[in-house]
């Protein structure tokens, strides 16, 4: 956590807009997203299915499906330089070398017909121009580093010969092979069992500290976030609803959506109270309500909420929320009664 806000950020996303043009209309998958990442920092992007997490990651990596995808506006600055204005060739070089990514489903992201050692080695051959023998050696080193037993022997094995957790380790080995300084992990443990998830998260944290990487962790799991993140951005319908350091979100969430999420999850260490489910569903991205995107589900919505879109604004130092009445919710909590 070397996150002095004075140091130059590694990555700065400003007002990112991503659209998909579909038959049903234009879907605003990401709508004015702002996040900042420093070296050594873990930023969690949390949100439910379809909220725009993966699209954000793909836009940063430069691997968005275009078309139908289209970046309609904004900046993605890597060490001050806007990736969106960069010549393709240079951007390709940054990808993998400086910014790399781990996907949810390791099996479908690895090539089934190539040995894993070859696939890891390819990073060195393609980007570093290393010869085959040396690339293989480096691949084995990487496999050892991510905790694959008998790496030397197993480098010739194919992806299907590994368990889910081991495959995810292989993905991690590929992603960190070239010593990137930004690592984006899109639901890296969602497909894994909890004991394996714990191993993989621990490995990611270790590697991050060792290399002082900036880590963007995309997840829908509030437990994982609480365990590893330094700060968090909560997304809903393509927008950041609330962002702060990780402690403030859990102790004094200001946005009714964040508060609703926290009240709706059962806890392994918790009692049997009835869950406070959020009623209804997220809006269709092709048919967004005019005001606050959460207003159709929000118990506190007023006429203003239904007509005027709340901007993401600072409500306390380092804590932003996109709700007209955010301050009231925090104050109400301090006063121990419900907001008006």
């Amino acid at each position: 956590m070397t996150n002095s806000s004075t140091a130059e950020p590694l990555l700065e996303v400003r007002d990112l807009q991503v659209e998909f043009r579909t038959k049903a209309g234009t879907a605003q998958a990401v709508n004015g997203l702002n996040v900042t990442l420093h070296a050594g920092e873990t930023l969690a992007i949390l949100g439910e299915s379809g909220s725009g997490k993966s699209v954000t990651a793909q836009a940063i990596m430069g691997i968005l499906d275009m078309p139908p995808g289209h970046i309609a506006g904004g900046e993605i600055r890597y060490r001050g330089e806007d990736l969106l204005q960069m010549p393709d060739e240079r951007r390709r070089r940054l990808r993998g070398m400086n910014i790399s990514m781990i996907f949810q489903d390791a099996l479908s992201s690895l090539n089934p017909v190539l040995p894993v050692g070859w696939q890891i080695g390819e990073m060195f051959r393609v980007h570093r121009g290393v010869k085959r023998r040396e690339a293989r050696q480096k691949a084995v080193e990487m496999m050892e580093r991510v905790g694959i037993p008998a790496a030397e022997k197993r480098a010739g094995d194919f992806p299907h010969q590994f368990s889910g957790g081991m495959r995810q380790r292989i993905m991690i080995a590929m992603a960190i092979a070239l010593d990137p300084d930004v690592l984006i992990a899109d639901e890296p443990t969602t497909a894994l069992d909890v004991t394996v998830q714990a191993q993989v998260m621990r490995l990611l944290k270790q590697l991050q500290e060792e290399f002082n990487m900036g880590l963007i962790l995309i997840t829908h799991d509030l437990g994982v976030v609480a365990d590893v993140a330094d700060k968090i951005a909560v997304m809903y319908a393509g927008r950041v609803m609330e962002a702060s350091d990780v402690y403030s979100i859990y102790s004094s969430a200001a946005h009714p959506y964040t508060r609703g999420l926290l009240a709706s999850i059962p806890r392994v260490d918790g009692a049997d109270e009835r869950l406070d489910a959020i009623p209804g569903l997220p809006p269709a991205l092709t048919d967004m309500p005019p005001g606050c995107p959460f207003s159709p589900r929000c118990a506190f919505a007023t006429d203003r909420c239904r007509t005027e879109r709340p901007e993401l604004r600072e409500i306390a130092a380092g804590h932003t929320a996109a709700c007209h009445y955010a301050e009231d919710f925090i104050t109400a909590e301090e006063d121990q009664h419900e907001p008006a």
Partner: protein
Amino acid sequence: MSLPETTSAAAGRGEDPFADAEVVLDVQNLVKHFPLTQGIVFQRRVGAVQAVDDVSFQLRRGETLGIVGESGCGKSTLAKLLMRLEDPDAGAVSFRGEDFLAAKGEHLRRLRRKIQIIFQDPYTSLNPRMSVGDIIAEPFSLHPEEKPAQGVRNRVKELLALVGLNPDHINRYPHQFSGGQRQRIGIARGLALNPDVIICDEPVSALDVSVQAQVMNLLDDLQQQLGLSYIFIAHDLSVVRHIADRVGVMYLGRLAELGTEEEIYREPSHPYTQALLSAVPVPDPTLRGQREQIVLAGDPPNPADPPSGCRFRTRCWKATDICTTQEPQLVSRPGVSQLSACHHAAPDWEVEGAPDDARRNDDSA
């Protein structure tokens, strides 16, 4: 080879509000092995996956029994055996005193009505070409003797309302509903024949958390209203804790531990349960670094070739010689109130921290 303690498959000695309730489902020593074959022309049997091995438990009226365990431990196979979608190799299942496995023809049909299942995937478990009304009414065409007096259509509308869907949407198709709504449709169909038992196989796993809470609350309400018994299968320990009255923990086809929700979550006695619970992240950053995690070394063993003795011994920090030679039975153990299949069972781990020796395996490499 087991300890001379009771081998009863009922709950342990902890507080159990259902202790006197009627047993609706009595499962004894259920076994299902899937043969593994090799060769193309002459298939040779080279072993078997022990998907369910010697599983016993009872389910009482109005109660929810949670089954947790990691991928491949046999949860869905158990569900299929209880539905008679698979035939067991050995064991007995009786439903309200009647032998369910021996039942045939009309008798089987009658019993089957009383046990329904809800599947994990609300996207694939509904026929996309059938209207919601037809999907929910389907059980009535399989069981015409159950045709409701008020007419099928009225009953379907009533069921839609019961699960919180708009009865006017009876003619819509599954793709016009969200995941949570489709899961409600599956629940409505499951309720059509007034079952006594509903087996839920990962019913909320595919849903977003806010929607997951809606479905869990619905299941709760229906249980209260209709006196249903649930077998609730999930890999999410938090979800199971929330909904279950009693919990069985499975590892490689066997029950490792069986007890009330309180016993399992507050005083887990089996090292595997302890490791599982310690690995679940808790949504509270102030507990970071305070909760000792038992990080298990290595991968789960091959289910076709489980270790001798205790199946967990290859990953267990407490294993001794007896664990290699004797398979521990699910029985009550000294100092432990629930049933535990561990030779060294002890409630010696708490949420706050694992014992020091637990970290012997603390190396994820």
